[in-house]
């Protein structure tokens, strides 16, 4: 519930995936079976993801994806006010890519469902190659509609809508350098907060010196993001990727992230490909965020959601891909086994760790240590390609 709310909201992302590799070419036929696992901050989320992409004739490619999140545990946001829980989110996506000369048109539908959240997303995209396919420009719009419920409260029902507009420009710069510029605007409307989370405020009447009340968010949120990324082929057979994104929204949050990635095949035949990456992210807090409000109903909007606080994340990741020898390959296709491990450090500035009050109450409200945690993310998958 608490954790998946945001994931469900982002369901639209899963829909089409990368717009198209290069215009005038259909996405490659493939099948992927992945186990994904996230563990950190008291929460474990794992499950399978299965993708099948198949061509029908020379100009139509169909894809289907089934994705499951199985959630158990309780993050610190709800630990203080609720008990552990476990639940499941199921997501189905269907997509079609249609090629007309140098133009690729894609449509997609995603349905995400869990016991207290239903989300549906429709997306449409078009991309076109220019200058002898040195440039590819893609446009994409999506519309998502959610129904929000609250377990244990049959009277609660709310809705939310999400509209996304994105534009990407992919450019081959030299024989060894490719770059991409993307911009995306997202407009949310409706019930945007989490029905389970609360904010805390100073309350002398309480034993700990503070009490909790429900969060209350604005009903609209508009955001803009712009990113640039480049990939360069080194003088030997290896590639580096650099990426930067700047983000700002109407809630007063501004964020930046930067990523570097190094990809190194061990043999000419692609048998082993090693990868290493580092990613840094930082954001400031939303205007209506506070770890500790001065009194009940102190502001018209209020949040103590740690994702809206002032914090940084640092991710380090390594991965390996191994191509199975031909004699073991199924159906005469290229088969790879892949394992990626990411370690992410979350370091909060103004989200304090209230769990210290469990043992002693000598710490004054607002004087608790800042919260931090680390998470491990595993992706283990098998891919079959032509």
């Amino acid at each position, binding site marked *: 519930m608490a954790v998946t709310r945001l994931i469900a909201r982002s369901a639209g992302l899963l829909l089409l995936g990368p717009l198209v590799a290069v215009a*005038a070419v259909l996405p490659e036929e493939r099948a992927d079976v992945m186990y994904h696992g996230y563990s950190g901050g008291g929460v474990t989320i794992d499950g399978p993801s299965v993708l099948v992409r198949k061509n029908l004739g*020379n100009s139509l490619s169909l894809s289907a994806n089934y994705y499951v999140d199985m959630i158990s545990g309780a993050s610190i946001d709800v630990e203080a006010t609720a008990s552990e829980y476990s639940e499941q989110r199921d997501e189905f996506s269907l997509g079609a890519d249609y090629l007309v*000369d*140098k*133009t690729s048109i894609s449509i997609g539908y995603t349905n995400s469902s869990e016991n207290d959240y239903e989300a549906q997303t429709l997306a449409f995209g078009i991309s076109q190659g220019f200058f*002898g396919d040195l440039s590819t420009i893609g446009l994409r719009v999506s519309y998502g509609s959610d129904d929000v419920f609250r377990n244990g409260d049959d009277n609660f029902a709310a809705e939310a809508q999400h509209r996304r507009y994105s534009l990407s420009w992919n450019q081959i710069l030299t024989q060894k350098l490719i770059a991409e510029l993307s911009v995306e605007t997202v407009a949310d409307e409706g019930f945007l907060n989490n029905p389970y989370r609360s904010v805390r405020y100073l309350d002398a009447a309480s034993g700990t010196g503070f009490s909790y009340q429900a969060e209350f968010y604005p009903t609209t949120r508009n955001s803009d993001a712009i990113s640039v990324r480049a990939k360069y082929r080194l003088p030997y057979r290896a590639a580096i990727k650099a990426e930067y994104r700047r983000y700002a929204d109407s809630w007063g949050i501004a964020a930046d992230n930067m990523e570097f990635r190094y990809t190194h095949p061990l043999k000419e035949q692609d048998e082993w490909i090693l990868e290493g990456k580092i990613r840094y992210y930082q954001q400031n807090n939303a205007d209506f965020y506070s770890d500790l409000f001065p009194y009940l109903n102190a502001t018209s909007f209020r949040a103590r959601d740690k994702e809206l606080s002032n914090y940084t994340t640092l991710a380090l990741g390594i991965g390996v891909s191994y191509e199975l020898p031909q004699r073991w390959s199924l159906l005469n296709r290229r088969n790879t086994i892949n394992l990626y491990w990411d370690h992410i450090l979350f370091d909060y500035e103004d989200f304090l760790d209230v769990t210290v009050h469990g043992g002693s109450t000598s710490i004054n409200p607002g004087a608790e240590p800042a919260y931090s945690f680390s998470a491990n993310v595993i992706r283990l998958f098998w891919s079959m390609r*032509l």
Partner: protein
Amino acid sequence: MKRLVVLLSLFLSMSYVHAAEPSKDFTLASNQGANLRLAEQRGDVIMLNFWASWCGPCRQEMPLLDQLHARYSAAGFQVWGVNVDALRKDADTLLAKIPVDFPILFDSKGEVSKLYGVAAMPSTVFIDRDGNVRYIHKGYRDGDEAAYKKMIKELIRE
């Protein structure tokens, strides 16, 4: 917007080229021992196929080109595979996996590709018995061999 539409229709119309201009002559090293010169092939129908080891559709059509070469060579037809790999060994590695009987020419510096304005990979140029470029086929998709056959038949009958 109007210009965009014009541009789009231009792109659409460019995918197939009907022409009848003299082919540009060249001489390239080949895997048949001697250098091969195009102008010396007058009287034969030549199917010039520009390909690379790193190009998926090119690899896919290699065996089909070999079949065409074998089937129509008695009627005065040849497939010439112009390889554009910068390193010849990359082409040799692939040819070891997908052996073909038609001659492979090595255009490592891309001079001939430039001469013919190769605008897609693969690109296939059909040259008639008089040495004129008659058709340029861009890319390869499943089923294109039917179009190849039709053109070859038409040209060898002339």
